[in-house]
């Protein structure tokens, strides 16, 4: 059985906010959920520290047999994820 939890992220996803996002995402993944769907439509900025959190969470989901999916990602942020080659680790959906 696979269960997907949803999460809404807002604002900047950088060094100052990533720890908070990470804690929240880890908590969501700590329950029965195996996959996470993060609404990225309201994220304005993604730094490398934020990318590390996405990578970490994707790995946690992968261990449970699930995935990390981002929805509504803006073009500029999508570019960042593609540029570091994380587009097959973190699934991007419109």
């Amino acid at each position: 059985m696979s269960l997907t939890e949803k999460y809404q992220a807002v604002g900047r996803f950088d060094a100052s906010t990533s720890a908070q996002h990470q804690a929240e995402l880890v908590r969501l993944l700590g329950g029965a959920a195996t996959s996470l769907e993060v609404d990225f439509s309201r994220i304005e900025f993604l730094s490398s520290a934020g990318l590390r959190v996405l990578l970490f969470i994707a790995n946690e989901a992968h261990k449970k047999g699930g995935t990390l999916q981002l929805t509504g990602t803006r073009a500029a942020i999508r570019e960042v994820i593609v540029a570091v080659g994380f587009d097959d680790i973190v699934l991007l959906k419109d």
Partner: protein
Amino acid sequence: MQIPDWLGESRVMSALSADERRHVEERQQQANASLAPYIGLACLIFFSAMVIIDIERYREHLFNLSLSGIAYSLVAVCHITLALSIVPALALKSRRAAEDRTLAARWLRWHQVLLMGSLLTVGCVAVLLDGKFMRLGSVLIVVNLLYALAWRCRFAVNATSVLISSVFVLRNGAGEALLPMVAFGEMAAVICLCAIGGAVIHRDRVQFYLAQYRESLYLARLREEISVAAQLQQSMLPAPWPATHEFAVHGLMRPAKDIGGDFYDHFIIQNGAVCLVAADVCGKGIPAGLFSMSAKSAMRATTIQSSTATAAPDPGRLVAGVNNLLHEGNEDLLFVTAIYALYQPASGQLDFVNAGHVKPLLLNRDGHARWLDAPKGCALGARAGRTYSAVRIDLQVGDTVLLITDGITEALNTEFEEFGMDRVMQALEGAAGIDAKACIERLLSAVDEFTGGVEQSDDITCIAVCHQPAWG
């Protein structure tokens, strides 16, 4: 229930080192100095009332040579001393006191000595003259509660206060009507509580000052360590820069904070090839800096190892090996994006791998610039088992390849605009026949001009290699 720690402050202070005690005393003095002008104002009101009483006593001819007359005279002198103590207290607010710290300290000492001396004398005279402890008690409350005293005095002051308050109840309470006895009891309780309160407040303040002082020492040491580490990090980046007729390399790493998460590397391997790296670890500061050093070592070790094993190492497979090495035991999943290049000075052949990094720029002898595309590779250390493929380009005489990090393309100006890849190109286009060093200088001066003094938010790294530079 915890019994109040009467000796608290004295015990804390006596256990301190000379340095710590000096610091705490300095802070206490500062607190006293900021309080003194207000006490001075309060004394002004008190003094005005006392002057009226003294004038009244003078009119009633109470200042005579009898015992009580002498006592009244002494009290009047004390009132004048009290008035004198107001002057230095108010003067502490003046500009001269702010400018001259030693003068201010002297004024404060004068104020305290005059104030406490006169108040305590008045209190003692009241006890001697008509056996009233009330005034001495009040004086002790004021002195004890408000000012930070020399720590050796505090216990004596506290003990006297409590002793007086008990004498006060015993002398006034026994045999009287019930109502005044309750009032005296309450007064005694107030004196006692103020003594205890003063002791606790001042002990806590001493501990607070002490904690701050120790924290500041720790921070100073940490700052020192970080600056040493930053110097060490710079010295771990390779120098000097080779500049021969065959090739020239130049670059730099300018961290945003003391420690950077970027690094570059260049070294010659066994088959004569030059290995060039520009890399950027995710995040910033000390964690990124530590990971960058381990990534740099991993790249060097893997390159040297495979260059001894095979005559022409495959950069793609080499980077894949580095990726697996960096992923191992990397529980926090730090990753590093990099351009890894192997350049043959003899033939001008340059193979490079792009692991999630900013594209390299090729600047030819005529000043034409173009970005070099390569198959997209994943950032290193993120996932094991990734594959990477290299792209080969043949450098012509005078060609320069520039590797940068996103600290350059994402440098912000006062309008929050990014420098961007286009401006990198604009900065270098038309620069015909420049070598590696000139290329780096030109790019950085363009970045600095663009940012216009805005604080650097990310590490800036660039390294350029020029094939057969036209020296002279």
